[in-house]
């Protein structure tokens, strides 16, 4: 190992240097001096990051949480008083759901996942087609053609199932594609909440959810859904 390699590793994490780097350090006076200077720099960094924490922060958090609980309890007692009315409404809603395609559990799970992993919408990397292929292979899936303009790709648990999470560059912003090989839907369904809208499409195996911002173009989301439907296949 040379000095340049050693210093690159030290600048990444001085506390977890591999054995080879340790050996270089022990033999190189110049790098020992560099390490000493870097340790001092890190100590100053830590000190400067130590911004004042508002006094009583923990108490305020606990207080807010207990107020939240009290509100929830009051709400619960009101709910009991209106239980009969609620059950009638619930009955009505359930009846309507038999007639109309409404919001089901999978759509809620998909939306909750996008909210929970919202930071991926801000990923701005270019993930290569090969990487996407490798990722899909890890869940026994192959892409018949290369999937382009991918800003994020990962596998993750989505509700009770697991699948692939891709973020594509859409016409008017990032578009999330969740491929759920173990969760099926019988037909294409659109859904939305206050922030997002999307489409859930049956795949060759499982289902594909395509979700965009609530102002995104639904036709574009549906097109992406159809494209994914054609491209994603179970690995042989």
């Amino acid at each position: 190992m040379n000095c340049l390699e050693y210093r690159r590793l030290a600048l990444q994490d001085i506390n977890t240097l591999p054995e080879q780097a340790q050996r270089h350090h022990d033999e190189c006076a110049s790098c020992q001096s560099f390490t000493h200077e870097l340790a001092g720099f890190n100590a100053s960094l830590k000190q400067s990051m130590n911004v004042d924490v508002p006094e009583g922060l923990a108490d305020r958090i606990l207080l807010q949480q207990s107020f939240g609980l009290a509100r929830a309890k009051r709400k619960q007692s009101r709910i009991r008083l209106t239980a009969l009315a609620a059950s009638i409404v619930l009955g009505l809603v359930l009846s309507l759901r038999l007639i109309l395609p409404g919001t089901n559990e999978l759509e809620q799970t998909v939306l909750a996942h996008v909210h929970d992993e919202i930071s991926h919408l801000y990923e701005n990397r270019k993930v290569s087609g090969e990487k996407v292929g490798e990722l899909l292979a890890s869940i026994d899936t192959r892409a018949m053609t290369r999937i382009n303009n991918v800003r994020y790709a990962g596998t993750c648990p989505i509700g009770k199932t697991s699948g692939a999470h891709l973020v594509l560059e859409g016409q008017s912003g990032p578009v999330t594609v969740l491929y759920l090989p173990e969760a099926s839907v019988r037909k294409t369904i659109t859904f939305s909440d206050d922030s997002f809208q999307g489409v859930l499409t049956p795949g060759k195996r499982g289902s594909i959810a395509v979700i965009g911002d609530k102002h995104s173009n639904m036709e574009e989301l549906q097109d992406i859904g159809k494209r994914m439907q054609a491209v994603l296949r179970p690995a042989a």
Partner: protein
Amino acid sequence: MDNKHKQFEALVRACSSDLYRYAYWLCKQSSLAEDLVQEACLRAWKSLHTLQDVVSARAWLMTIVRNEFYRHCKKNKRLVQDWDEHIDNQLSMSSYQKDAATDIMALRQAIEQLPGEYRELLVLQVDGGFSGDEMAEITGISRNTVMTRVFRARQKLRSILEIPEIKKVDLS
């Protein structure tokens, strides 16, 4: 007090300062940082049953704070990069003068000038003491990317502070 309450209180008391500092370095505003931590803790309370390993509780909470920050950016229709530019402009208009400032203040202002994706990882590593694997888990990016960004963060800081970068030092 039941077990869930006790566990939550212990978590809040043990981690709220770390969470606040992380939130502060994400958004660089003290009042917003406190709001983010409060919201994140409420969210954590609601999904405390999903926390299976107490050892990773701090990383779990950091992830929730991070998501809260991104949720805030989305709600306010702001890109994270815009956030940085906005604050950086404020910085350049402030009475910041490197020579007059103390070392710590100069360093703090240099950290503020780092791009958000570098700054947050440096804070997680230096202030939070998280390993590369833990930072990858918190941010959802690969360990290699994490370590490259940490390296670049230090290089950029050294460049801002006019400390020689490693490519420029005299290597014996």
